[in-house]
């Protein structure tokens, strides 16, 4: 459904240019959820924004590559066509639904906005109610006139999801949609998203920093580090047999239920380099326990190992 090829994005400040996303390639097959996993600053959100063409000069430039949605290259569309694609083909689920809903706009209207061009006026109300109810908003008919502040965080997120789904888009982009919610609500929203994928055959690009969330929801994961893809493949494969030392460290950092009390959580030493800082060698080398001279000199390419791909000189298969 979505194919991203050799995408490179740079942010500019003054005449400084820092590459936030460096030649990355991945795809989202129809009917699957692909998780884009990485630390803050790894470029994962930039990728999501690029797909929606929200990276704009003078702040940022999409320097090269192609983003194909159902065959057509989004980067080659003119503004009007891109708007049509955004309106019809892409649904976006925001990180913080509280900020993403207009406080002066009743929730019914939010959903109505996306639906308006497609469904005739007489049927629209019923369509909105049905959609909201199917997403777990009870008594939706009575609540269309309510304002966002009258809803809880989880309910707001359901409204936002309804807005994203109303046009039955080809692709859903979710940028950490559960980060702003509390843990029990998170679980509800994740289950809802997974059900939607199964029932409606949705394709979804799911941005998260939480591997355990990705494991619940995603069929494939793409692990990003400092603007590069370091490992990608089927979720089970990547999590159970991580090839890249960074992925291994990430998996190791997931807290376990039933760990002995007072066990230290395992963190990765050091900090991720600022976007574009490392130009020579593997970006993970400064923090990597396996780093050798070769790692610091030459940047490893993605190589295929079984079903997955990883970019590291030290993969033993």
């Amino acid at each position, binding site marked *: 459904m979505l194919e991203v090829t050799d995408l490179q994005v740079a942010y500019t400040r003054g005449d400084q240019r820092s590459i936030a996303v460096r030649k990355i390639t991945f795809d989202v097959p129809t009917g699957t959820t692909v998780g884009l996993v990485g630390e803050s600053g790894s470029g994962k959100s930039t990728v999501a924004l690029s797909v929606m063409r929200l990276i704009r000069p003078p702040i940022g430039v999409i320097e090269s590559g192609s983003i194909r949605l159902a065959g057509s290259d989004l980067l080659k569309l003119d503004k009007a066509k891109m708007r049509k694609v955004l309106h019809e083909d892409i649904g*976006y689920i925001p990180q*913080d639904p509280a900020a*993403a809903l207009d*406080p002066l706009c009743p929730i019914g209207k939010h959903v109505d906005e996306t639906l308006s061009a497609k469904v005739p006026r007489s049927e629209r109300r019923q369509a909105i109610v049905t959609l909201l109810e199917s997403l777990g908003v009870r008594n939706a008919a009575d609540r269309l006139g309510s304002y966002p502040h009258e809803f809880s965080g989880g309910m707001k997120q359901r409204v936002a999801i309804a807005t994203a789904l109303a046009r039955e888009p080809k692709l859903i982009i979710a940028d950490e949609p559960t980060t702003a919610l509390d843990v029990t609500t998170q679980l509800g929203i994740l289950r809802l998203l997974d059900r939607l994928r199964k029932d409606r055959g949705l394709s979804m690009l799911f941005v998260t920093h939480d591997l355990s969330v990705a494991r619940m929801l995603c069929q494939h994961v793409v692990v990003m580090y400092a603007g590069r893809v370091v490992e990608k493949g089927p979720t089970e494969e990547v999590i159970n047999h991580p090839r890249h030392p960074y992925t291994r460290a990430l998996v190791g950092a997931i807290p376990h239920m039933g760990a002995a009390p007072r066990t230290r959580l395992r963190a990765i030493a050091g900090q991720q380099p600022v976007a574009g800082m490392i130009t020579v060698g593997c970006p993970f080398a400064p923090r990597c326990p396996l780093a050798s001279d070769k790692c610091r000199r030459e940047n490893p390419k993605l190589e295929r190992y079984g079903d997955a791909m990883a970019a590291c000189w030290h993969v033993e298969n």
Partner: protein
Amino acid sequence: MGIQPSTDLLLEGVPVAAERRSFRILKTHAPIFSGTVLLIFVLAGIFGPLVAPHDPVRIDLQHNLQPPLLFGGNWTYPLGTDSLGRDVLSRMLGGARVSFLVAFTVVFISGSIGLLVAVVSGYVGGVVDAVLMRLTDATLAFPLILLAIVLASIFGASTKNVIIILAAGGWASYARVIRSEVLSLKNHEFVSMSIVMGGGRVWIIGRHIIPNVLSSLVVLATLQVGAAILSEGSLSFLGIGVPPPNPSWGGMLANGSDYLTVAWWLAVFPGVALSLTVLASNLMGDWLRSHSDPTGMR
């Protein structure tokens, strides 16, 4: 030492709270009070000239400087007469029409221009923003009275010209304040959401930006109602406002100040009416602002 400041706070807290309470009573009843005041004045402006006991511009030098009813006057001139023997009550009623006409028209015109400039400037940004904002700065920096004198000497003094002059100077403060709101709204995530859902510029401005700045616009507008009435007064004072002998509150206040020692009623009645209008419209604005916010929390 550690306890000292908190005790102070406690002791000081009592009178402060009491003060707040009395103020809150005024605030919660604001719509009733200010609505009544404004309604009476507006009705006076509309129907006043019909019920006025005298012709507001008729000169009667034999009965000049008559005191008002309770201060030695009689029912013929309930609020007294001015130096030319014109009935103050009739002139107040006639002046209400002029003053409110000027105030509401000025606020409407300058508010609309200001909103338009602010939204275009703030949302489009870049060169457009720079040009429009320098224009706004220039307008704000330019002395309104000077502009008024120039325009009045070219086009002559008339009620229409007063409105044009005040609107020409008034839009800039709306543009300034609302532009900054637009700038912060523009970066709100719900605007990005609308872009992501394929909303165009005009749609986003109409659907999300304008409704969200309306409460500020209303507050500014109600403040400007008072300011416009006062400005009309100072223009009339300079002889470039509503041309005499037509009555306006500002003009009456200005004339009356010459007679303050011998005939206080000439300045006091229009002055009180002006103050009440300004107070009422400001309270109304405050109340509208807090009640136009759907969260009702502010």
